């Protein structure tokens, strides 16, 4: 092995606290608020440390409100940390925001960078000017984007007429337009159908393979992480609960499934399922629904279904992978033990 290059992103004990003015309800509350403000502090990111190396594809995952966006904002320099250090490509982002801006591309999935009323191509032209992208690079990139993301036919449309998926593809292309070394993607697949998701995933992988672009991505879709990233950082209540390979998570949780069973019988609390094999836990039971969590390694799926069929009049069964939320919950509660 050659000696590895220094990390492109280095974060030590990064912490962000938000101050939230405390308001009591109603008119009296509003009057009080006029005269004195008390603040609650929320620690959104809590002493987070990690290193990310050039060309890495990192998934940054966690529940709603875990602190993902807050971390991304500190990495892009639009938020000043309360404590701790952050260095991106040798720059402290919040001190040198625009210099840092030259090296990074960002997609905030919830908002667009594009101007609403004018054609998509104008937003590309704008980027070309403000990042002073040389014409040959601009041309070359536009060809790649039209090819891989299939956005050629969208360029003449005003942004407000795009569908969510079309808009997201354009925003993604814009983020990559000036050949940044690092790309931050905050929920780039939110609300998209599976085809667009796959298109976006393959685009990100292509760009990473061809340009060695470092990518940090947040998402609630485990499949995004699975198909794009080699490494995951899991954060919960602002703290890192896992930082390691995706393979290790899959080895641990890939065998975990969630079963939703709909039955004709009217279920009452109390008469819970009987005789379920070990490794199965009942998560919901009542009305006409049963929700089970099982580890395929401990319990056979067939055996569990067989048991259920014998006891209930089953209308429907669906089997899902466990969600990120429950993986995080489990890792958080039980810790990560090798």
């Amino acid at each position, binding site marked *: 092995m050659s000696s590895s290059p220094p990390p492109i992103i280095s974060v030590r004990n990064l912490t962000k606290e*938000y*101050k939230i003015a405390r308001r009591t309800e109603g008119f009296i509350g509003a009057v009080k608020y006029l005269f004195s403000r008390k603040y609650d502090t929320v620690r959104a990111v809590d002493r987070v440390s990690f290193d990310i190396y050039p060309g890495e594809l990192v998934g940054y995952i966690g529940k709603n409100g875990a602190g993902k966006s*807050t971390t991304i*904002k500190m990495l*892009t*320099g*639009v*938020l*000043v940390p309360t404590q701790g250090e952050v260095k991106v490509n040798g720059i402290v982002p*919040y001190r040198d*925001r*625009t*210099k*840092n*801006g*030259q090296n*990074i591309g*960002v997609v*905030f999935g919830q*908002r667009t*960078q594009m*101007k609403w*009323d*004018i054609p998509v191509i*104008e937003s590309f*032209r*704008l980027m070309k*000017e*403000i*990042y*002073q992208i040389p014409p040959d690079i601009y041309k070359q990139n536009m060809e790649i984007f039209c090819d891989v993301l299939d956005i050629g036919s969208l360029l003449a449309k*005003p942004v407000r007429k795009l569908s969510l998926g079309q808009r997201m593809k354009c925003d993604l292309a814009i983020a990559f337009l000036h050949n940044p070394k690092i790309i931050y993607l905050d929920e780039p697949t939110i609300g998209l159908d599976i085809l667009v998701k796959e298109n976006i995933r393959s685009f990100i992988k292509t760009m990473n393979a061809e340009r060695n672009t470092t990518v940090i991505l947040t998402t609630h879709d485990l499949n995004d992480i699975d198909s794009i990233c080699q490494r995951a950082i899991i954060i919960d209540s602002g703290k890192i609960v896992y930082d390691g390979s995706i393979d290790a998570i899959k080895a641990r949780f890939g065998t975990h499934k969630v079963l939703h069973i709909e039955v004709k019988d009217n279920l009452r609390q109390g008469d819970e399922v009987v005789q379920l094999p070990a490794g199965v836990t009942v998560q919901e039971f009542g009305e006409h629904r049963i929700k089970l969590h099982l580890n395929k390694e401990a319990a056979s799926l067939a055996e569990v279904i067989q048991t259920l069929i014998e006891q209930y009049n089953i209308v429907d069964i669906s089997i899902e992978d466990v969600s990120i939320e429950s993986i995080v919950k489990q890792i958080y509660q039980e810790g990560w033990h090798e």
Partner: protein
Amino acid sequence: MKRLKKYLILTEQSLQVAMTYRVRFFTTMVTGLIQVLALYYIWKVVYAGQKSLGGYTLSEMVTYIFISYAVRNLYTFNTERKISENIRDGSVIIDLIRPLNYQLARFFESLGSVIFEGILVGIIVIAVGFGIFHIKGPASFMYGTLFAISLTFSVLINFSLSYAVGLLSFSTTSIFGFINAKRFISNFLSGGLIPLTFFPPWLHKIAFMLPFHAMVSSPISIYLGQIEAYQIANVLLEQLFWVIILWLAGYFMWAWASRKITIHGG
């Protein structure tokens, strides 16, 4: 040159945006014409046989009405709202990352509507003035040229004030009250509604201590040739003074606002 190009494309694109709002253009134009006509008939009644009021003959007053409307309309008041919305809805974080100066970017962006709604509507209103109401042209070619320079300063002052108000108002919940108050005060104290010579002396004094008069009253008095040639330099320098002061004020306010945004997360 390259630096300027980065900003000129903002103007070009905001002009494109402005042109998509054609209905707004027509309503601006129609309400503008209605305002000007209403003022015309009011003043006609007020003059009722009198030769001159507040130092203006009726025909000078008619010219004042049309030109002051065009000057006042040159800078439409969208900047405040756009800036406070930009900060409140969080889209400002995109601007924070981009390698552009926020103040300059907002200025060049606002020029789009200056060109479309300001200059274009102004030209139409003034054309009506010349064609139907026989308003006067500038006192001379030189006065006309200096008027144009004075207008440029007027736009800069207007922008700087709106920019500062926009930045102030993002932290209050009553942006609209704030913006309307500013609009009323600046229309009134700039001489946009009635010439400042009609003000009682104390108010006249106050008006000349504030920057507003430099937005409307100053360029018009040059247009009408009310200022001796040798004094025009003073008027322009005073405008320049306000441009610098207010631009600096905006600069420091952005430093303050962006610190707030990056510490409190908007």
